């Protein structure tokens, strides 16, 4: 449904011409998301996940590469014409607190896009109210309670559901959930996650899930693809389960090693990978971007640029010269 090739994005720090500082947020990312499919992006903070998500949702322009939606290359369209394509891709913000206008009731929030739709399709006004209630029910809210309320009168989880309901008003084909649960109470998180999962299954909406928590990616993107992003590059790509079980890129491995172990329920993996240095974006690197932090790097890594490909016996694509299977993931203790 949507594919991207070689997406690059460079931010120029604002300021005057003389002091422009550049941040390479994306360095040539390829992706493709099927209709009704699920894809997850994971990576460290600042690796460009959000940027990519926003580009996909049409909220940000990219400066290199091409995005193709339903076979139509976006670069061939004038910005105004792109809008209907991107409208089918809705972004769910990380922060449900700022994603809703505090001065508008839930009803007003939902009514605006519904009214637009009703007008376009010539539906009667009453359809909107029905639809609003329908959508709220769909996301598991009680319309009677929620509709007349202002966002501040709702809990974080309720708000996030309203945000999702609002995204659904335009019958999107894809939801981009950018850390959609990270600001929600732990006990409510799963509710949102399963709602998204549910929507995918019931409505056939594809979901792009952006997170730094591999476990949620696994939960929601069951059977889908996982993209591991590092400094604006995809370093490993493949089926979620495959990667979690058999990560081959040291970066992926260090991400997985960093997941806290529920001692008492699980035992840690035997070969955890810990980066040898902290992320420092100001350093420009030749060769493999991860080389400087990689415990296994060689001279080759520092000079030669690896490409994302399937090599060796591993099913997933990765960009490591020395792919190797390591046991980094915690395993459940045998049920006592």
């Amino acid at each position, binding site marked *: 449904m949507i594919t991207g090739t070689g997406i690059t994005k460079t931010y120029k*720090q*604002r*300021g*005057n011409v*003389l*002091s422009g*500082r550049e941040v390479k947020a994306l360095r040539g990312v390829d992706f493709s998301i099927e209709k009704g499919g699920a894809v997850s992006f994971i990576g460290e903070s600042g690796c460009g996940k959000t940027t990519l998500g926003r580009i996909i949702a049409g909220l940000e322009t990219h400066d290199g590469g091409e995005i193709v939606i339903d076979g139509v290359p976006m670069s061939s369209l004038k910005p105004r014409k792109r809008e209907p394509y991107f409208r089918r891709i809705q972004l769910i913000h990380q922060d449900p607190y700022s994603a809703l206008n505090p001065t508008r009731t839930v009803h007003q929030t939902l009514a605006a896009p519904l009214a637009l739709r009703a007008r376009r399709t010539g539906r009667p006004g009453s359809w909107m109210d029905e639809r609003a209630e329908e959508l709220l029910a769909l996301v598991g809210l009680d319309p009677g309670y929620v509709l007349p309320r202002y966002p501040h009168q709702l809990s974080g989880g309720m708000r996030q559901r309203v945000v999702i309901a609002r995204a659904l008003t335009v019958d999107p084909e894809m939801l981009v959930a950018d850390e959609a649960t990270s600001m929600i109470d732990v006990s409510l998180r799963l509710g949102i996650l399963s709602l998204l999962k549910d929507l995918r299954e019931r409505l056939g909406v594809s979901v792009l899930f952006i997170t730094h928590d591999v476990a949620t990616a696994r939960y929601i993107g069951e059977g889908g693809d996982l993209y591991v992003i590092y400094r604006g590059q995809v370093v490993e790509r493949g089926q979620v389960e495959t990667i979690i079980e058999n990560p081959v890129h040291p970066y992926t491995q260090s991400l997985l090693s960093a997941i806290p172990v529920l001692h008492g329920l699980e035992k840690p993996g035997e070969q955890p990978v810990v980066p040898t240095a902290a992320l420092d974006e100001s350093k420009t690197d030749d060769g493999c971007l991860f080389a400087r932090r990689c415990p296994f790097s060689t001279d080759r890594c520092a000079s030669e640029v690896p490409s994302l490909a399937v090599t060796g016996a591993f099913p997933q694509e990765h960009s490591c010269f020395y792919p190797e299977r390591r046991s980094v993931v915690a395993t459940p203790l045998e049920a006592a």
Partner: protein
Amino acid sequence: MTVIARRLAGHLARGLVMVLVVTTISFVIIRNIPGDPIAARYEKLIEQGMSPDQAERATAVLYGFMPKGTLWQQYVDYMTGLFTLDLGESLMTPGAQVTDVLFEATKWTVLPVLVGTLLSFLIGVMMGVYAAIKRSGKLGDVLAVSGSLLHGIPQYVLALLLGALFTTLIPILPSGGTADIMFEPGFNLDYIGSLIEHATLPVLTYALASYGGWILAMKSSVVTVLGDDFILAAELRGMKRGIIFRYIARNAILPLFTILALSLGLLFGGAIFIERIFNYPGLGLMLIDSITNRDFALMGGAFLLITVAIIIANIVADMLYTVIDPRVRSGEEVAR
């Protein structure tokens, strides 16, 4: 250091353009003021008992001091003069260089403005801290409301009230003039005493008029800083009250320096009412005079001076921020 230098260079370049544009605008406006200064002068002489033809001849000479040529030519002359800091000669005081007249008037504006503003700044800032600390108490309320009120009251109302109080009801202060001429100017007690006596009302008015603003600004700034986590953190580390107070004060006062610089720049042009009411011979009075006398060169000079003061104040404010705030110094964009 380079950040500072680069910023300064940018500011200066932009400032220069601004000066040129504003000067051009004010030039066009000023030169289009209707009214013949020489005819007015003529009427004045007539009133003073000069015979009409004598008055006519006496005023005819003044035409020599009127700007010559087409408007465009006058503009070219004016601008070329500007680059050599030659603002021309005053029309009403032929022979007096505009720069000299401006300098003399500026002295008398800057003196009370500086003293008044600094005084109110000091007191306002202190009371602002107090109002912030006691913000939930009665006294805090009183301070805040009186601050808003003083801030809201126009200067001339204060000036008139103070004038009525100290020159009519309890006539203890002189209104008008700078110092008693009988005292030899210089560093002697008599002269300085007289200087202070004459400046008291203008200074008091400036101080009162701006005091409200300072108390409000400082209060809100302190309240913001008090809410900042690092203050609580310092407290939780058991830092001494004095040190914490300094943390609060330094962080809170930072944005105020910017306002201080800006307000000093603005006061060059804002002293008109006070100077008119107290007959204090500063720029404001001079400006009114130059307008009623259609002294084009002087008016232009005054506009230029005020504009430059505002621009410089802006630059100083920004540079001050750059120097004081380490975040800006290192080239980071800080939301203000």
